């Protein structure tokens, strides 16, 4: 009985306010996505800056600069990881003009929200990327150095692609956290999914049905994200099989070798050969 009542109420609210929710969903996805992407870029930049090598022989100015950069990145990470995002939003949206006497000011909640979510994600990603870079075995760097690659080339072509692959689950984590945590942006009047609930509930006093819609909507968003991230992970892992090239390199497919690379490292492996291989 309670359930049918609830479903009826939900249906009523949905027909009347669906655009409010859909708009909220759209804004939440956009904010979480843009924030995560920008945050990842910030994180990669910080991670790279923190792993610039210094040796004793380097010029003192270079050494000082590298240590200064490390200090700044460190401070940034600690400050933005160590304070609540909702407070950061309020601080920048309402506080910035106070501090700069109106010279600097976020005029709309969009820019401020994107800014806050990005630097927040960036602070978390900085540490993830740093860890990801350190986790790549030293042999990869040495292999690159031994063929004459510079530090930047080594990073760009060898280390970072492998880092990205390794930290993808963490990027996914951040994205899903952002989908949910962007709900605090209603504080600076950003109309994301949770703000839709507040306005609908405020107008109808139907807290539970509206919250139920929100719960389902958030869950759908995060589940869809999980699936997409898994697919991306699979794609980055590469093909599980490779084609043997023939001698003249022009007509491939002498056969396909299947190598057991898919799944977890702990799965049992079966080697199959396909297509003309015995």
């Amino acid at each position, binding site marked *: 009985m309670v359930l049918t009542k609830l479903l009826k109420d939900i249906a009523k609210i949905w027909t009347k306010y669906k655009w409010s929710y859909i708009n909220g969903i759209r804004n939440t996805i956009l904010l979480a996505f843009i924030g995560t992407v920008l945050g990842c870029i910030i994180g990669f930049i910080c991670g790279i800056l923190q792993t610039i090598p210094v*040796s004793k*022989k380097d010029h003192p100015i270079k050494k000082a600069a590298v240590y200064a950069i490390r200090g700044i990145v460190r401070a940034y990470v600690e400050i933005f990881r160590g304070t609540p995002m909702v407070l950061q939003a309020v601080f920048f949206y309402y506080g910035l003009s106070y501090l700069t006497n109106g010279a600097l000011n976020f005029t709309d909640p969009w820019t401020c929200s994107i800014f806050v979510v990005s630097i927040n994600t960036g602070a978390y990603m900085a540490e993830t990327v740093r860890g990801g870079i350190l986790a790549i075995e030293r*042999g*990869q760097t*040495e*292999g*690159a*150095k*031994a*063929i*004459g*690659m*510079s530090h930047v*080339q080594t990073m760009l*072509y*060898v280390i970072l*692609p*492998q880092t990205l*692959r390794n930290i993808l689950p963490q990027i996914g984590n951040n994205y899903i956290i952002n989908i949910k945590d962007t709900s605090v942006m209603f504080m600076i009047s950003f109309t994301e999914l949770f703000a839709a609930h507040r306005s609908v509930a405020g107008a109808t006093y139907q807290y539970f049905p509206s919250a139920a819609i929100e719960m389902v909507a958030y869950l759908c968003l995060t589940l869809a994200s999980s699936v997409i991230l898994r697919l991306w992970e699979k794609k980055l892992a*590469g093909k599980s099989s*490779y*084609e*043997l*090239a*023939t*001698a003249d*390199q022009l007509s*491939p497919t*002498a056969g396909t*070798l299947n*190598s057991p*690379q898919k799944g977890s490292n702990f799965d049992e492996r079966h080697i199959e050969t396909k297509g003309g291989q015995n």
Partner: protein
Amino acid sequence: METVIELRHLSKAFGANVVLKDINASIHKGDVTCVIGASGSGKSTMLRCINLLETPTSGDILYHDKSILNEKISLNEYRTHVGMCFQSFNLFNNMTVLKNCMIGQMKVLKRSKEEARVNAIRYLEKVGMAPYINARPDQISGGQKQRVAIARALAMNPEVLLFDEPTSALDPEMVGEVLSVMKSLAKEGMTMVVVTHEMGFAKDVANRVLFMEQGVIAEEGTPEEIFTNPKNERTKEFLSRILNK
């Protein structure tokens, strides 16, 4: 004979631990120099100093009579002339076999993609790995990886190739395939410095052998001199230990 690389009074210490003491040696063009000695005698460190994967504590390294420790010499350019193969292969895990052999040519030597591809395939054919161009490093065996690593180094068209125990991480049945590739390179006149525990290879292929002991070159000479008539007591002891196994 033309000297390609010369080590002068080279020393290397990790903190208080002195690994190399006053090493003097020269590498001649076309020579295959094998460096033998017990583990911990400084063989690998010396090799790693030659292309500056380790920075020497003191002394100098000359490449065609020019000091590579001089700041004016581009280290990255020098490394394209002095290739290296590692015990642990160090193939780039995020690239296929072909891409492994192309990336350095394209990004460091600025060759065109097509030129790099043709060159890479030529050397992959040489090491017998051309059919595997589409495989990733984690899909091939250790011996195959080392052969790709040799092709990757060769694709840069280096003047000297350094080998740091290239067969030590391999299963016994794969050692042969790597050694035979190295043998054919030696026959073609490639200048090579090989740190190895494969005494058979040193005997057959090298024309110079350095025996290292506790951070110094204790004895050097032709393979005949070292293997059949060693003068140094420590060389005798080492060889009898390793050959009578």
